[in-house]
C-alpha cells in the first residue's frame, strides 16, 4: 500500500522541478532488458511484449515530453496514481 501520509501534488521533474502532470508521457517498463541477437524467439517476445504491470507500486519510465524532454524513472502507484519518487533515467 501507498503511504497515506504522502501528499499529492504535481510531478516533480529532477531537471525542472514540480510541473503539471499533463507535461509528462509514460515511457515503458525500465526493468525490461534488451536480449542479445542470439536469444530465443520466446525471449524476444518477452522483451517486446511482457511487462511487469503491477497493481500498486510500479517503477516506470516517464518522459518530460512537454518540458525538458528528459527520460525519467518514476515510482508510481497504478491504483491511486500517486507519484512517490522521480529520478533521471540512465543507461
Amino acid at each position, binding site marked *: 500500500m501507498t503511504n497515506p501520509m504522502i501528499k499529492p501534488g504535481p510531478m516533480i521533474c529532477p531537471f525542472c522541478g514540480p510541473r503539471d502532470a499533463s507535461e509528462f508521457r509514460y515511457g515503458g517498463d525500465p526493468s525490461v532488458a534488451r536480449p542479445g541477437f542470439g536469444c530465443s524467439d520466446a525471449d524476444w517476445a518477452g522483451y517486446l511484449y511482457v511487462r511487469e504491470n503491477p497493481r500498486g507500486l510500479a517503477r516506470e*519510465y516517464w518522459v518530460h515530453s512537454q518540458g525538458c524532454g528528459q527520460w525519467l524513472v518514476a515510482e508510481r502507484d497504478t491504483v491511486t496514481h500517486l507519484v512517490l519518487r522521480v529520478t533521471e533515467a540512465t543507461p
Partner: protein
Amino acid sequence: MTGPSRIGGSAGESLPFAFAGRRLQGKAGDSIASALLANGIVTIGRSFKYRRPRGILSAGEDEPNAIVDVTLDGVRVPNVRATTQALQAGMEISPVLGRGAAFLTRVLSPFIASGFYYKTFLWPHWHLFEPAIRRMAGLGRVDPASRMTAAAGGSLSVDLCVVGGGRSGLCAAITGARRGQKVLLVDRQDSLGGSSLWRGEGCADLVAEVQALGAMVWTGATAFGAYENGRLGVHRQGEGLASGGSLWVVQTGEVVLATGAMERPLLFERNDLPGVMLADAALHYLRRHGVLCGSRPVIATNNDSAYPVALALAGAGAQVMVVDSRPASARSKAVNGVRVITGACIARALGRGRVSAVELDSGQRIACDLLAVSGGWTPTLHLCCQAGGKAVWDEDRVILVPAFPVPWISLTGRVAGDWAAPDDLPWEWAVAPEIPSSGATRKIWVDLQNDVTLGDVELAARENFTSVEHLKRYTTLGMATDQGKSANLLGAAAMAQATGRRATDLGLTTYRPPYAPVPMAALAGLSRGALQSPLRRLAAEPAHRAMGAHFRDYGGLLRPAFYGTDESSIAAECIAARQGAVVFDASSLGKVAVMGPRAGELLDFLFAGRMSNLAPGRVRYGLTLNEAGIVTDDGVVLCLGPEHFLVSCSSSHVGGFVASAEEWRQTRFGRDQVFIHDRTAQWATMSLSGPTSKAVLAGLGMVATLDDQAFPHMSFVMGQFMGKPARVARVSFTGERGYEISVPSGLAVPLWQALIAAGAAPLGIEALGWLRAEKGFLYVGQDTDGETMPHDLGFDAPRLKRKQGFVGDRALQLPVAGDAERKQLVGLARADGGLIPTGAHLVEGSPRRSIGFVTSSHLSPTLGRGIALALVEGGRARIGAEATWFDLGQTGRATVTPACAYDPEGGRLHV
C-alpha cells in the same frame, strides 16, 4: 388554497419571461424556480415514465423535477435545472416533458415496473418497439442551430482549496490564509454565506475577513470533480444562458470540503405530488426570494432541522402544522404559534394534480397547500468519495461518513456531521432514513426523475438484484440528471430493509464526476475550430497562396495539394516535372541533427543499414524499424562532418523519430555521448526537380559548382543564398534529377520566389504522390502497414544476411518474417490502361479470399495509363502473372508488375 406567492422583496428590477406560453414577471435575483413559485406555479412538468405531474422539490443541484428547456436570444439550452439557473429577462421556458400519452401510461403503469423491458419485446423483434420507446424517453430537445460558447479557463495552483463558502468554509479559508497559505474559496452560489443566507443572518463578518486576508474567492463556481494528485475540476458559470462559462483545473496541496449536507425527502404514498417540497427549500425560497410556498403548510419531519422552517413560515403569516414522527420533545413544545403533532407520520399525500391535504398514519386528514418535508440530511461527500473515500453509514452517529480518509481532503461543518444548534435546546438533525414497511409501495417514489418507486426496489430485491450497483442499473435509481442526490441513500436503505440487512451494511454506488452536470462547451473550452489540434503551417504559405495553391490537411500539416482551381491541374504539374523543372515545398521534411562521439553508433542502431561509415558530404537512404521489425519510416541521412549527421525523415514521422532517438540516447547510449537536435523548423527546404532543374539552379548561383562529377547524386554541398548559408543536396523524390535546397526558414518565401522566377513550375503534394508512385517510391504508412518488414519492400539484406545491432534486428529472424505468404510491394497494370482504385483488394479462390490490396494508384499522365502499387501475398513471385481485383462489388483483371513503372534503370536522375 392559495399556494405559493411572493410576499416580500418587492425591490429589484422586474424581469418578464414566459413559461409554457404564459407571460409572467420575475425579479432580478430570482432563479427560474423562485420566479415560477412567485407566480403561483406549482406544476413544472411531467415525470419521465408515468407522465405524472411534478413540482419543484428543492432549491439546488439535487432538484429531480424542475428540468426545463430555455430559449433566450435565439439560443435554446435543454435540460436546464430551474432551481440553479438565474432568471433572465426574455427567457422562454418550457417543460421538457408534457402530458404525452399520460392516460395510456396510467393504464399501463401497473405493468411497466422496473426492468419490464428486459422481459418482453422479444417477438417479433425489438426493432419494432424501440422507436416508440425512444420517442417516449429523453428529456429536453437539442436545437440544431443553437450554440453555447465558453470563456478561457486554465490551470491554477494553490496551497488550499476550500469548497463551500458557508460559515465552516469561510472559517477554513481564514485559518489557511492566516497560516500564509495561498487559498482559493469556491462556492456554487452567487453570494458567500452558504445556508446561513436563509438559515441565519449571513456571514458578512467572515466574508469581510476572508477578503481582507487576500484569499481568492470564486462564487458561481462548482468544484465538480476530484482528480489524481490533488487536482480539482472547477466550473465557473458564465454570464447569461448562452455562455458555458469556463473550466479550471486547480492543483491543490490540500482541500477542505465545507459542502454541507442535502436534505432527504420522506417516503409516503404519492410523495411525488406537486406541492411536496423539501423543508429547507421552502425556507430558502422565503428568505432568499420572498416567496412563501404555501399559506397553509404541513411540515413533516423526523428531525429538528424543520423547526426553524416552521417558525419562519409562521412568522411570514402562514398557518403552519408540524408533523413529527418522533415523540414530543423540548423542541416540539417550544414552538410558539405552530401546531405540532408528534409521534405521527404522513401516510399519504392527497390532492388532484397538487397536494391539498395529507393523511397521517392515524388516519387523520389535514388540509394544506404545501407539504414541506425533512427526512434527515446526507452530507455532500461527493468529492471525497470521487477521490476514494467511499461513503458508509455510521450507525453510532446515524450519518453517512467516508470509510477511508483521503489524505489530501478534510471535512468541516455539516459535511463532517457537525451542525451547531441554533439555540440552547437539544438539536437532533442526524437521523436514519425511514423506509415505510407497509402500504402501496408502488405509489411511493424514491427516485422522482426516473420514476423509481419503493415497489421497484422491492421488485429488484425479489429478483436478486440486491447489490446497490445492480439496484441502480436494474431500476435506474440514481441515474437521472440529479444523479440520485436525493434518492441514492433512500434507495440503498430500502434495499437493506428489503433484504434484511442492517443499515451498516448499506453501501452506496460509486460517486462519479461531475458532481453536477457541466456544460460540454465549458469542458471543450477554447479547443474549438482552428484551436483544436492546431494545424501546422509552412513558412512560405503566403507565396503558395499567391500562386493559387489549394491547401489540404495532411496529418495535421496544411500543405499545397495542387496549384489551381481543381484536381485537373495535378496532371499538368506531373508533366512539367517530367519535361522541365518543378519546385515542391518540402520544408516539413525532418532535419534532425545527431552529434557526438557515439552519433554514428546511434544511427547504426536506429536504421536497418549502416550510417556511421558515411563520408562527409554524402547522403544515404535508409529504413527505420520498430523492435517488432516493422518499417516505421524511411529517410535520408547526411554526413555533415565528423560525428555530425543530419537525418531527414518524412514529414509525419519527425516527432516519432526524435522521440525514439531520444529514448535510445538517454536509456542506452548516454546523454553525454550523443546529442539530438531537431532543426526541422529552423530550415525551409525547396525540392527542385526535373530535367532542366540543373539549369534553373545554376541561375540562382547558390553553389560553386553543379558539375555532376564534383556533385554527384546522393551528395550535398554548402552554398549561400541572400548572404545566408544554404545546403543543396542531390536527392530525388520524383525519379528525375533533383536538388533539395535548404535555407534558414526566414528565407522560405524569397527562395521559393527565386526558383519560380528562374523557371521552375510549382508542384503540389498530390502530383508528387503520382510521380513517386510511377517510380515505385513508397510512402511509409500508405504503402506499408503494421506488418511490413524491410524485405517485403525489396530490402532483403538485413534479414538474409542476419544483420544485427539495430532496432528490430532480432524480429527479422522470427518465424513470421519467413512466411511465404508475406505481403510484398508490387505494381499492377490493367490491360486496358484503366485505374484500379486505392483500397481495392486482390482476390483469389472460391469463396473469395483477399491476397492483398492497392495502396496507391493514379492515372499516370507520363505513361498514359493507370498505375498502382499494392501489397500482395508473395507478390514478387507473382510478377508477370494475372490477378483479380475487387472494388465495391466490381471485379477485373490486372497484371502484377514490379513496383517501378517508370525509368527502372534510373537514367533520368542524370539527364
